């Protein structure tokens, strides 16, 4: 346990130093001197207003975009060195918001095999990867189906399987749950959590839902191209947080907690989960 914690703090998979980026010369930078490590085996949530630079930052993590100044290194490999691009893309897989734009073929299993095929992986190996990836997202029974007949949540699971088949070590979900219904969202979250706990996959999860950020080990708040806050969900969403200043909101249970504290009711200032509120409230309510 101690070792795991140690690893989580020390081994940086992605090292970003003083990253600045512009889409067009002379404009205000979209990323402004951003420094950040993504650590081995952690779930890192990135939150921030529309246009704060989250997707731009994520695209730097697998060399889809290159720094204007500063450096981005994946396992020590600099993204600016083109020789590294292929291995970086293999290590860092990315799932985007719209499942429809990520499906390229007409059969689910072909779609999942598309990535590894492009990497030049031998056929036997592809087949076994396709079947294990589909199993990981619980979509094996749809292997022969047409992707466009699937629901949004199912398509997004296929997109994740396609990324898993490339055996990445870091999985980036860029608002991958935004277009899904509650069950689809929960499915994607569960898969991310399972990959993290069972295969020690490092997960970067960009989201507009603060309830989702609560499951992360660490939360980063972006605002106008800068990182303005970093901490565990408990510190970022603690009582008296100024999160609303950044166009964000507290998770519902944190909002309830703050309301209760303001009324003079005793609740731990970092309670965040339904269980924690239940535990704090039970003795108070049973007394009365």
């Amino acid at each position, binding site marked *: 346990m101690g070792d795991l914690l140690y690893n989580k703090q020390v081994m940086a998979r992605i090292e970003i130093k003083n990253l600045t980026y512009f889409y067009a010369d002379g404009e205000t930078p979209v990323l402004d001197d951003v420094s950040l490590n993504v650590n081995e085996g952690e779930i890192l949530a990135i939150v921030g*207003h529309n246009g704060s630079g989250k997707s731009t930052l994520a695209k730097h993590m697998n060399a889809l975009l290159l720094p204007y100044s500063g450096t981005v290194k994946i396992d020590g490999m600099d993204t600016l060195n083109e020789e590294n691009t292929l291995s970086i893309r293999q290590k860092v897989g990315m799932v985007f918001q719209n499942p429809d734009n990520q499906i390229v073929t007409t059969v689910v299993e072909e779609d999942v095999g598309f990535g590894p095929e492009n990497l030049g992986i031998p056929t036997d190996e592809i087949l076994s990867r396709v079947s294990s990836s589909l199993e990981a997202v619980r979509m094996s029974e749809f292997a022969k189906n047409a992707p466009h007949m699937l629901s949004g949540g199912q398509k997004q699971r296929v997109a994740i399987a396609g990324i898993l088949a490339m055996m990445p070590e870091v999985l980036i979900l860029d608002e991958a749950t*935004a277009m899904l219904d509650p069950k689809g969202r929960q499915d994607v979250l569960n898969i991310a959590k399972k990959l993290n706990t069972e295969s020690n996959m490092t997960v970067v999860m960009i989201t507009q839902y603060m309830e989702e950020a609560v499951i992360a080990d660490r939360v980063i708040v972006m605002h106008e191209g800068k990182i303005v806050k970093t901490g565990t969900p408990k510190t970022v969403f603690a009582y008296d947080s100024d999160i609303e200043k950044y166009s964000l909101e507290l998770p519902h249970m944190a909002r309830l907690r703050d*309301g209760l504290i303001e*009324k*003079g009711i005793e609740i731990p200032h970092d309670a965040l989960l339904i269980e924690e509120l239940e535990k704090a*409230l039970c003795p108070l309510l*049973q007394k*009365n």
Partner: protein
Amino acid sequence: MSIVAEKLTHIYLEGSPNESVAIDSIDLKIEAGEFWGIIGHTGSGKSTLVQHLNALMQPTSGRICVDGDDLKDKKNRREARKKVGLVFQYPEYQLFEETVLKDIAYGPMNMGESTEKAYEIAREAMVSVGLSPDEIEGRSPFELSGGQKRRVAIAGIIAIRPRYLVLDEPMAGLDPRGRKDILNLLKTLREKTGCAVIMISHSMDDIAQFADHVAVLNEGKLYKAGSVAEVFSDMEALRRTGLDIPQAAILAERLKKQGIEIDRSIYTVEQMLDFITEKTGGVSG
């Protein structure tokens, strides 16, 4: 005044091998001035249903009446499009004019208002969605932020001054501030104009807080319809259809299991806050 659906059914590609029954015998009555939330899994028929409300789609069978007029009649359909404003999902992709003002004025002009009058209405609509005409009317819609574009698109529908405002997932993709802004905007608009709001959303917490009625669709059928309290008090039913339960309702359920007596239905943070404050002796804040 009301919108009434009777045995409303829509079948896509009827008779073909890919035939799909999107909505099946739906009976629903929405009174003027009400705030309805429409919820259901992806593919449950929500978008298909709401596109019938302003006659954008015609039923395969059954019927739909707006203020008593059956939309089978072409003349009634034209009337219904003035009364029922529909904001599509991701409506910002449908902005097309070169300035914000022209885009918003398009609806009223199309309905026969003079340019001058249409611009006046458009400016009012801008103000009601929280945009400043002075700052924004001359700009191209394409250079605005996501949240601003969404508001321009909603203003374009508000400008036809609908009696029923229908929105298909209006908060999708927005940040928390943007979502809250839209919700507050709908609330204020309804208070000011008395229009009904019919909103599709996947956020049970938002529906619990803002709507007064809910319709739950499941596989094309109307699974449940009623007041927010009725629908959210049957949590098992919501779970069965794969939907979320508002967090405050889950907490209430767990407290009850611990033997705590809860004398009312609780599904919003505010209700929970009131309940606990009363119960613990109301230390006032």
